[in-house]
């Protein structure tokens, strides 16, 4: 694997490899010494053109647990806010010797531009580009679902037959897009629930069912109900009348939590707007995986950085024959 840009083009084998390596990474995080020497001497740059705390610190923790050096580069208070182009920034990072660049950008496709431009030789990890994709979030969600459902027997399994319902602002959500592609690749059945104004126009081409009523979705007993954040910063038009109305019709409140089967998990990528899309009862219930998702995020990002950076630059399949000669 050279870059991780999206989940749409991620093969089932690659996705399962990331999830399985993440299992091993999660195991190492139970140890007395959590730091591994694996990426000593490698430099990971967090290039964040958009505000993000959770994703950035998650990548930072992942890189540091693998002993990589981390350089944080965020738009505020840097040359990026002085109007430097992506090309110049990228070439600066190249000159500094970055081995991997984790990029978050407001423009859809920015990470692909960076990866295919020839400006840098570093591996590129998309940490969210516009309304396009956020692949590591989808991978950590899939990891969380698999772990909750199969526990110790998770390794090597996909999500065949698992019913996942995603509710909220599908239109602006890169998390939803990445999840739809990845969950479909892994064999899960995806249902999207949203107000009609927040459903993308091209949704008929997605491998997912779309409904507009959350009560119907809850009654269908999904294995996982993923609640998306209402991104108030992207609400530049009247997508729904009031926050209260949204909360009443599409929020996961205590009443809907009651109806949801006991085995169903409640997921949220964070940060949560408590009382808007998710009630405190749902967020704090034992069925909530919100904190598991944060923990798993570090393991999954460790796996991605490992697979991108640990091997020789040419890449290629692992050669098991070497084991005997060592």
């Amino acid at each position, binding site marked *: *694997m050279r870059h991780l840009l999206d989940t749409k083009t991620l093969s089932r084998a690659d996705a399962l*490899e990331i999830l*399985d*390596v993440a*299992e*091993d990474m999660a*195991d*190492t995080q139970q*140890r*007395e*010494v959590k*730091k*591994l*020497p*694996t990426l000593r001497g490698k430099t990971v740059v967090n290039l964040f053109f958009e505000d993000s705390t959770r994703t950035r610190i998650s990548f930072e923790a992942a890189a540091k647990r*693998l002993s990589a050096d981390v350089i944080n580069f965020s738009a505020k208070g840097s040359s990026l806010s002085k109007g430097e182009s992506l090309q110049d920034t990228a070439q600066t990072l190249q000159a500094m010797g970055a081995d991997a660049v984790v990029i978050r950008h407001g423009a859809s496709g920015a990470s692909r531009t960076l990866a295919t431009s020839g400006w840098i030789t570093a591996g590129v990890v998309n940490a969210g580009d516009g309304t396009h994709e956020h692949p590591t979030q989808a991978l950590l969600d899939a990891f969380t679902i698999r772990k909750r459902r199969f526990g110790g027997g998770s*390794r090597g399994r996909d999500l065949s037959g698992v019913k996942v319902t995603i509710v909220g602002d599908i239109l602006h959500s890169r998390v939803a897009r990445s999840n739809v592609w990845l969950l479909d690749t892994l064999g899960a059945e995806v249902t999207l629930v949203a107000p009609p104004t927040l459903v993308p126009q091209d949704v008929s081409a997605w491998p997912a069912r779309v409904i507009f009523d959350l009560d119907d979705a809850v009654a269908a007993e999904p294995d996982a109900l993923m609640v998306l954040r209402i991104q108030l910063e992207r609400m530049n038009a009247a997508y729904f009348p009031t926050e209260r109305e949204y909360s009443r019709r599409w929020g996961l409140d205590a009443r809907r939590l009651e109806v949801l089967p006991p085995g169903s998990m409640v997921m949220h990528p964070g940060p949560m707007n408590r009382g808007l899309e998710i009630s405190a009862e749902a967020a704090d219930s034992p069925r909530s995986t919100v904190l598991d998702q944060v923990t798993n995020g570090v393991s999954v990002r460790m796996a991605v950085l*490992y*697979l991108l950076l*640990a*091997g*020789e630059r*040419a*890449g*290629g*399949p*692992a*050669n*098991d024959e*070497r*084991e*005997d*000669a*060592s």
Partner: protein
Amino acid sequence: MSTRTVLHEADIARALTRISHEILESNRGPDGLVILGIPTRGVALANRIATLISEFSGTVVPVGALDVTMYRDDLHRNPTRAPQPTSIPAGGIDGAVVVLVDDVLFSGRSIRAALDAIQDIGRPAAVRLATLVDRGHRQLPIRPDFVGKNLPSSSDERVNVRLAEVDGEEFVTIQGADS
């Protein structure tokens, strides 16, 4: 191409029986032993040794697997290797006598990586090394405590260990450089 079988199934069984007795002898019994295999085939061997020790001593010995992939010093020279699961027995390894088990001892670099991995997991009282085949050509000051068979070989020959649990067949061959 010259391939020669150096250990047959019965030879492997005898070697493991002897190693198990030697471990018990040098440790003066089974107390405090933890057997850790290095994936892939070291884990199968570790399980067999632990079973044998339990039979001989009447005490169940904790056994586990220790993956060293993430501690290797040659990661950047080779294609990405997928790590294998590590499983440490519930009692941990603090104060224990850890016996590392690998199939072939060659450069010693896997064992160096294993020692680093052990350090991150706990502080054993001692670490011992058991290997089915020692073929020499050490690149580090590491020596095995328990050896199934010393197999002097040229560094461009290949030693192949096949075990029933992993490969469905069981023998050790040495393959000449001319192949």
